[in-house]
């Protein structure tokens, strides 16, 4: 039994049922039934057309379940009465699932869970493990999400930006347990970018590849964070970097810049530098200027201050930082870094300790505490 094949086919079959008018939750139940049937019978009689087999069995299950319910019969009649989907159905069915799972009526966390379930074909248990919540909790979250989108008709394409945001969230969740969410996000984004002609989909894929390529170097064996400048660049995945750069360049050539392409451009400049000292900070600042223009985000302004500090020196960096809201997360950490480079070790140590106090994850807190300790150990008293 080829599990990867089944996992790949699950969203395809689900999407076809949904396009034919099946309610999302009912379609999912039917597909699960068909998968169970496949696991049971395929080893003895492998079908010539696995997808066709699954669609037929799942659709039959859906109709059976629908017929069993009087209220549902009316809906079935309504579906039957509708005109055929016509040639427009040639548009990729899986794409509809992306839009359905990223529907604006869902909260971001529901959208993420549903995307992993429906498009990614992950089991509820796998998603629960990745998010470190009990399986029952995740099952509830997913079934609530399914109820929310049931009855949504996808007669218009949804907003690509929402889908990209959901995939970005999946990627940022990182990884734990038996499902690597970062790798899963890359797989799904790769599929999406192949299906739609959108520079930002390519930009997001490039961004993920360029970040993911540095993953092995980003943590020490004991789990401690390794800052970019201290990473062993020999451990970066150069093939993945090359792919990210290629995808990005093709996207940039379309001349429709968006925030993901700009972020990917910054990541590619980091990936391109043979050493931290040789990083092209001047160009990175220019990309941050673009990002500020595109998003106006205070977090981007904060990152820009770091880049300015590297390109022009700590004083201009601190001047750029003064323009940023001091209540932002990591503001103190950036201030500490720039103060240290400016030679004010006492202020830097105090700011590192303050930043550690505000850190939201353990690795970051320990890293910042170590920075404060390093400076305090160097100064008398």
């Amino acid at each position: 039994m080829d599990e990867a094949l089944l996992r790949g086919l699950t969203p395809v079959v689900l999407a076809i049922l949904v396009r034919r008018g099946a309610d999302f939750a009912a379609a999912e139940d039917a597909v699960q039934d068909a998968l169970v049937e496949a696991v049971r019978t395929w080893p003895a009689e492998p079908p010539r057309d696995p997808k066709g087999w699954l669609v037929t069995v799942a659709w039959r299950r859906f109709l059976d379940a629908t017929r069993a319910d009087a209220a549902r019969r009316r809906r079935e009649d309504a579906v039957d009465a509708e005109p055929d989907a016509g040639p427009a159905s040639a548009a990729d069915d899986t794409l509809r699932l992306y839009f359905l799972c990223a529907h604006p009526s869902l909260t971001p966390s529901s959208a993420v869970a549903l995307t992993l379930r429906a498009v990614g074909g992950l089991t509820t248990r796998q998603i629960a493990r990745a998010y470190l919540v009990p399986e029952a909790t995740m099952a509830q979250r997913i079934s609530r999400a399914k109820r929310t989108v049931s009855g949504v008709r996808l007669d218009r394409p949804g907003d690509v930006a929402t889908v990209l945001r959901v995939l970005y969230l999946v990627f940022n969740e990182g990884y734990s347990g038996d499902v690597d969410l970062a790798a899963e996000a890359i797989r799904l984004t790769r599929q999406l970018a192949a299906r739609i002609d959108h520079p930002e989909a390519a930009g997001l894929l490039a961004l993920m590849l360029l970040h993911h390529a540095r993953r092995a170097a980003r943590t020490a064996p004991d789990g401690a964070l390794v800052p970019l400048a201290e990473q062993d660049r020999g451990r970066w995945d150069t093939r993945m970097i090359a792919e990210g750069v290629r995808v990005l360049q093709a996207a940039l050539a379309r001349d429709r810049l968006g925030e993901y392409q700009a972020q990917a451009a910054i990541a590619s400049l980091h990936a391109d530098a043979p050493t931290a000292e040789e990083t092209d900070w001047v160009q990175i600042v220019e990309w941050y200027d673009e990002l500020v223009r595109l998003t106006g985000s205070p977090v981007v302004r904060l990152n820009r201050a770091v880049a300015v500090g590297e390109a022009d020196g700590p004083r201009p960096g601190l001047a750029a930082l003064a323009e940023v809201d001091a209540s932002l997360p990591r503001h103190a950490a950036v201030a500490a870094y720039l103060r240290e480079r400016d030679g004010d070790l006492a202020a830097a140590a105090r700011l590192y300790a303050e930043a550690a106090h505000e850190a939201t994850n353990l690795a970051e807190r320990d890293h910042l505490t170590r920075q404060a300790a390093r400076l305090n150990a160097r100064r008398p008293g």
Partner: protein
Amino acid sequence: MAKYLLLKHYRGAPDAVNNVPMDRWTPQEISDHIRYMNDFAARLEETGEYVDSQALAPGGEWVRYDGEGRPPVTDGPFAETKDVIAGWMVIDVDGHDRAVELAGELSAAPGAGGRPIHEWLELRPFLTEAPTVTE
């Protein structure tokens, strides 16, 4: 088996013997401290006495219902108490003696100068269901 909650405090507990704020340690001392705690948890996992643990951020606030149609009242961070929980660990052990022994071991985590911190840990037994069969 009996479950116990081990509470580590940021502040509010009596002062530790070796009481130096962590940002005054050397980076090596911090690493040693973290390794000691990780090793401790790993060893309890092997003996089957580990249940769960979690570190908590120092920030936090008090929240209280303020009546129908009104937003909850918030206060803090911790205006009314000096006690802040830094993290917890749940252990499942044979009895009180073993729980005290383990808490003592965790309290001996190395701190500044590589010497044990001797920090106070709060040890609280879980309340359990009433037994279905009385002895």
